Structure formats: C-alpha cells, structure tokens
C-alpha cells in the first residue's frame, strides 16, 4: 500500500487507477496502474490491466484440459485453489518441474489433454525432458509458464526473465505472451498451435497477479540512473 500511496502522491489523477477486484467471495486483489518515475516525471506506465487466475482456468477448461500438472510457486496459489475446486480437472502436483513434461507426454499418449504449469526457472530445469519427449517425440505439450522477472520496460535484472525467450527460441518452441485478460485468447491459440504442429508450445504469463514484476520503486530508479 505504501507503494500505491507513493504513486498517488506523485502522479496526476489521469494516471492513477486502483481497481478492487473480487474473485469469489474470499479473494480480493488490489491492482494499480503503476508509473515509473524519474525526477518527478512519468516515464512510462506498467501494465494497466490484470490477468485473473479464473481467466486462466476458463481457458484451460475451454480447451478441454483433463490434467493440470503443476509445481507451485508462491503467486499461483489462487489458481491452484480454483483448479482444486473444479471437478472436471485432475491436478497433479510433482516434486520437480521436469516431471511435469514426462507426465504430460504420457497423458497425451493415453489420449487425454494435459497442461504443464511451471515457472520459467522450472521450464529451464525441464530442458532435457522438453527436448527428448516433447520435441523429439512430437508431443503437443502446452506449458503455461510464470514469467518471473518480466518487465515491460526493457530493464530486466532477473536472469530467469532475460533467458526465458532466448531459451525458447533456441529450442524452436513457439510461445505467446499473456499479460492481462485481454490476451487470454492466446492461451487457446497456444493449444491450437500445439495441435497443429504436434510440438510443445509455451504461454508466458507476464502479469502482476503473479507478482513477478513488482519491484521496489527505489530499486527501479537506481537501475534507470545507472543505465
């Protein structure tokens, strides 16, 4: 809240917007349009809308997913709770991300539709399973990947974020960036692409609901000053 107060004090009314979004009766998210300031001037704003966990769940269901194979991270708990409450989806928790890819491969061969839900760090940990089973065996594994460290303004201190897209490009894996609810159809596009190409496809979730791009403002200013 201190962060939002700081922004409210520094930015004109036209630039500030606070949304209170209720997701079911016990989930409340406060999302703000955040301005990046330098010497009191607005340089640019970060994302102005959010991606709801329920939107991701809707897209998962829309694409007839039967099994969500998943390693939690701290910011996906609300999605996990929503999935657990859905009787049509089997949620499988693993001990290490690479397991998700091999389990998904087996689910596909068995005739069902999986999705792997991991963070970008876990995607990198899964490299050999993505290569050996997903790519070499032509299996349409859709990976929804939390884009830890994602920023919209080009300065990306987190190597997990800096290396995510280069890694996917090196593997030749098509990917789609989803930042807010308006991008949600890209999740369906990812399933369509995977089915058409019979290859793994990634959805990168670069959104504040994951919390990955909530940096301390002082750190951001320092980075800008240091170039």
């Amino acid at each position, binding site marked *: 809240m201190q962060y939002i107060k700081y922004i409210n004090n520094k930015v004109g009314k036209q630039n500030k917007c606070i949304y209170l979004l209720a997701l079911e009766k016990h989930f409340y998210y406060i999302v703000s349009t955040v301005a990046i300031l330098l010497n009191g001037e607005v340089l640019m704003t970060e994302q102005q809308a959010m991606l709801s966990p329920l939107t991701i769940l809707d897209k998962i269901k829309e694409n007839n997913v039967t099994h969500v194979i998943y390693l939690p991270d701290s910011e996906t708990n609300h999605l996990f709770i929503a999935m657990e409450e859905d009787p049509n989806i089997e949620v499988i928790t693993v001990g290490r991300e690479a397991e998700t890819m091999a389990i998904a491969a087996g689910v*596909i061969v068995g005739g069902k539709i999986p999705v792997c839900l991991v963070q970008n760090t876990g995607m990198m940990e899964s490299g050999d399973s993505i290569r050996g089973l997903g790519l070499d065996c032509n299996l349409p594994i859709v990976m929804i990947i939390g884009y830890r460290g994602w920023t919209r303004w080009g300065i990306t201190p987190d190597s997990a974020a800096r290396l995510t897209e280069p890694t996917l490009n090196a593997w030749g894996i098509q990917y789609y960036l989803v930042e807010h609810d308006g991008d949600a159809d890209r999740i369906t596009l990812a399933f369509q692409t995977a089915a058409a190409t019979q290859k793994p496809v990634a959805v990168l979730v670069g959104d504040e609901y994951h919390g990955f791009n909530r940096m301390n403002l002082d750190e951001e200013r320092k980075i800008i000053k240091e170039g």
Partner: protein
Amino acid sequence: MINNDDLMAEIKKFRGKAIAIPTMTGSRGWLDSSEQPSRDVSVGGAMGKASNFAMGLALAQPDTKVVCFDGDGSLNMNLGTMMTIAGAKPKNLIHFVLNNGYFSVTGGQPIAAADEANFSQMAAGAGYAASYEFDNIEDFAGKVEEIFTAEGPIFVHIHSVPEIQNEPIGRRTRDPRNRSTNDAIKDLRKELGTL
C-alpha cells in the same frame, strides 16, 4: 540375484494387455521377452523420467495396466517421482526397479549409495499402496500374480544380475526391434486409438 530373462519370463505370464514402459537395462530384458511390441514404449535417455511417463499414461488409461521397468541409476536421478506417483495414486501402475548397483549401459560405474540405499523402503515410505523386494526368482514367481492383481500404485524392487555394456554408444549396433521412442509412441498411439 535375479536374471533379467527369468524375471521377464515370469512377468510375461501375467502381462495380459498391459502397456510396458521399460528404460535402460529394463529395455534390454523386455525386448527379448515381449510379444506385443505395439504396446511397448522404451523410453531411452529420459534422464529418470520413464516412471513419470508411465504414470501419465496410467492416469489417462485408468482401465489398462501400465508396467514400468525402471533402472536403479534412472530412479536415483529422479527419486521425487516416488512421491509424485504416491500422491497421484494411479491404481493401475506397477513400478519395477531393476537394481544391479551399476550404471550398466555406460560401462558399469557404481550407483551412488548402491550398498546403503533401499528402494523398496523408500517406496513404502513415499506412500505406494504396496512395496515388494525380491532377490530370487522363486519368491518373485510366487508373488507375481498378486502384484498384477493388487490395486496400485505398486512398487517392486528387483535385485538383478548386472549386464554391463562397455561399448561406447556411438559404436553400438541398434537392435532393429528396438524402435526409437518416437516410433514406439506412434505405434502405441495407433494401438490405443489416440493418434
């Protein structure tokens, strides 16, 4: 110690229409025994993930028995799979580990803690529905029917005779029956009607 050929001969008697997912040493033994290659997928070079693949298959085909022949080195690479399988509870999965104490296909280097660790105790501790351990074929032959009829996930720890391969992989001649994982997956998907 149990000879792989003897082990596979006993298993074959109760296989029925089970899908077999062997890897490493298990692939060599099963290849000589199986009479239903379209229901076999040898998951080579999966870095310990054959059991995960088998688990996914078992969950997607709950009315079909799925049997994984894991290696001790493979399982050691991915011990977390035991907790994943125990948590997912695929009732139709039988997870064998052929424990000979060595990385057999890379020349016979010892597995870490080969003399200290016990896979069957790990599986029991992880929460498999049942866990067995055998070091002679007679005892196994007396229990194999129970293993194939019990509700899973079942873990079976086999103390097996090492079959070390010293030839570098690049110089080995591929057995024509040993299809690539990609081809074997295609065949199985055709067999199951999921392609």
